[in-house]
């Protein structure tokens, strides 16, 4: 697709997305849209960290939940405004991400994967066992509808349509930011680190700083999404750290193809609709996700993005003879 065609397609897609609440007030459609907006940012963040810089992170759900808990506690307990609370939650997520990333990356990528998973599990355990702060496993139900105040505007976010605009608006900003990063010099450096770390290092690219940058950006985006999404849920409890979110993110990225911006976006749209398609088998949904992950790892490691990329390579490599018939070349002497 040409640049111009891509731009037109993106604009058409955005117009269509933002027209949805005008065309229908069907709560189900809006709920799917909200869930897509939230999950696609989470998956995009994971894609940035894993797909571009090669760090398999299980910590994203921790950033999401920390953003959510921070926003809720600041709004409910201290009466902060939503803006400030969400920003503080994102900042906290970034601080935690830097701690997890810096400490484990001193050792290896294996250590990062292990520490990030431990971190996500720890978040859930602490949320459950620290009732003075988090109200324990009962959580905080009945969150008030938040209000966004801008100069000359007071927007009380109550209806699903309001949340749809809020989350979809943020998702567009977040994906725009990710797109800018991955198509810039930064993105090329990140890809270089993923492809060949020693080579990138020899060219003067410091892997640690790029990785921490990608991790912080994804933590900030996930934290903001957590802070906004939780007011749509109207309840927060330790299940905000549920492994379900991690699995959905992982499958979105694995199927979409790590390092493929559009592939991951498309697969997170499918994954947003999938839980409802699998409603007949709620109990076995996670088992199916697990089977999907195993199967993808065994037979389809690059995902859709990787498959398209390989096809494109194959087209470039196709011998000229198919286009212009040529007499077969004599084999060169060995």
């Amino acid at each position: 697709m040409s640049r111009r065609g891509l731009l037109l397609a993106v604009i058409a897609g955005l117009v269509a997305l933002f027209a949805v609440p005008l065309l229908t007030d069907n709560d189900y459609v809006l709920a799917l849209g909200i869930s897509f907006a939230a999950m696609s940012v989470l998956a995009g963040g994971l894609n940035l960290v894993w797909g571009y810089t090669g760090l398999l992170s299980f910590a994203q759900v921790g950033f999401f939940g920390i953003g959510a808990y921070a926003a809720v506690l600041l709004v409910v307990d201290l009466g902060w405004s939503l803006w400030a609370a969400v920003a503080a939650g994102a900042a906290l997520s970034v601080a935690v991400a830097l701690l997890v990333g810096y400490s484990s990356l001193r050792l290896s990528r294996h250590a990062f994967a292990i520490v990030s998973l431990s971190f996500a599990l720890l978040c859930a355990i602490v949320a459950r066992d620290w009732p003075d702060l988090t109200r324990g496993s009962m959580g905080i139900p009945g969150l008030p509808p938040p209000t966004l105040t801008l100069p000359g505007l007071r927007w009380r976010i109550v209806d699903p349509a309001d949340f749809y605009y809020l989350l979809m608006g943020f998702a567009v900003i977040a994906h725009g930011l990710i797109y800018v990063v991955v198509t810039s010099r930064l993105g090329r450096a990140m890809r270089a680190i993923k492809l060949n770390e020693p080579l990138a290092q020899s060219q003067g690219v410091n892997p640690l700083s790029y990785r921490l940058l990608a991790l912080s950006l994804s933590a900030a985006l996930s934290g903001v999404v957590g802070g906004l999404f939780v007011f749509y849920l109207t309840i927060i409890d330790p299940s905000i750290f549920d492994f379900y979110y991690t699995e959905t993110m992982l499958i979105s990225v694995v199927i979409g193809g790590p390092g493929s911006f559009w592939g991951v976006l498309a697969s997170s749209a499918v994954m947003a609709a999938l839980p409802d398609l699998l409603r007949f088998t709620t109990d076995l949904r996670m088992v199916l996700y697990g089977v999907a992950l195993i199967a993808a790892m065994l037979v389809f490691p690059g995902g859709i993005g990787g498959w398209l990329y390989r096809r494109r390579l194959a087209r470039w490599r196709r011998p000229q003879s198919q286009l212009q018939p040529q007499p077969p070349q004599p084999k060169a002497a060995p």
Partner: protein
Amino acid sequence: MDLSFYAQLLLNGIVIGVIYALVAMGLSLIFGVLEIVNFAHGEFYMLASMLAYFLTAHWSFDYWTTIVVVTAVGLAVGYVLFEGLLLALRGEAFERSILLTMGLSMVLQNGAVFLFTTTPRMIETPLSYQNVQLGEVRLPVARLYALILGVAAFAALYLILHHTRLGKAMRGVAQNRAAAMMVGIDTRVVSRLAVAIGIGLSGLAGAALAPIYSVHPLMGFAFVFKAFAIIIIGGLGNVSGAAIAAVMLGVIESFAGGLLPLAMTDAVAFIAMIAVLLLRPQGLFGRGVRV
């Protein structure tokens, strides 16, 4: 808060640390030999506990038979796991191994939830109510047996690794796979054995712990989280380091549990792991002898 209270905390910590060691040594062994982080390790421990529960409660196996049967099943499962799944990963990027074992963990855990529900189950055996009295400190017999089994398993593993040809081959593969192949070591046999031993140790841990704690499908997840912390603290791939770190963590956790609020107790393993990574990234016992 007298001396016997602290002695009791110390003893409990050692027992739980030895159980941690069983799981963590297997994890560390598999990582050392195959360079695979087995994220499904905790699920095998959980399934072993489940199996032990059913053997004891429904078929009224006695304690020692259950231990032997479950450990043997664990060894066999490790064999199948290697041949069935992990073999396909040889020489591949580590993300694939992590995601593969993660997927396996999801299937096993949620499959177990689906089949058995999350209701905790307790094993009632004659052992449950017997205690050994040591001065003022009491030790339930089930815990004493777990302690003995753990120490015996560690000793056996140490002897295998350091005093048999197979163990030396295993350490050789862990140190340098290519060089090991060059001198004629069959890495497939060695890797298979490492996975079988690793899962077998998980099985032993599950069976030994089943009479002490309640058994439920989510137990593996919380447990493997500590095992991860332990193998990082002990040095990735260092089996003896993992065993020592496990006992240390068990004791520290036990004291934290007696003296600190609950949320802090959970965080001990994580804080220790981060501290070790910041101060000594290769692990407390890293860089010495691997495996």
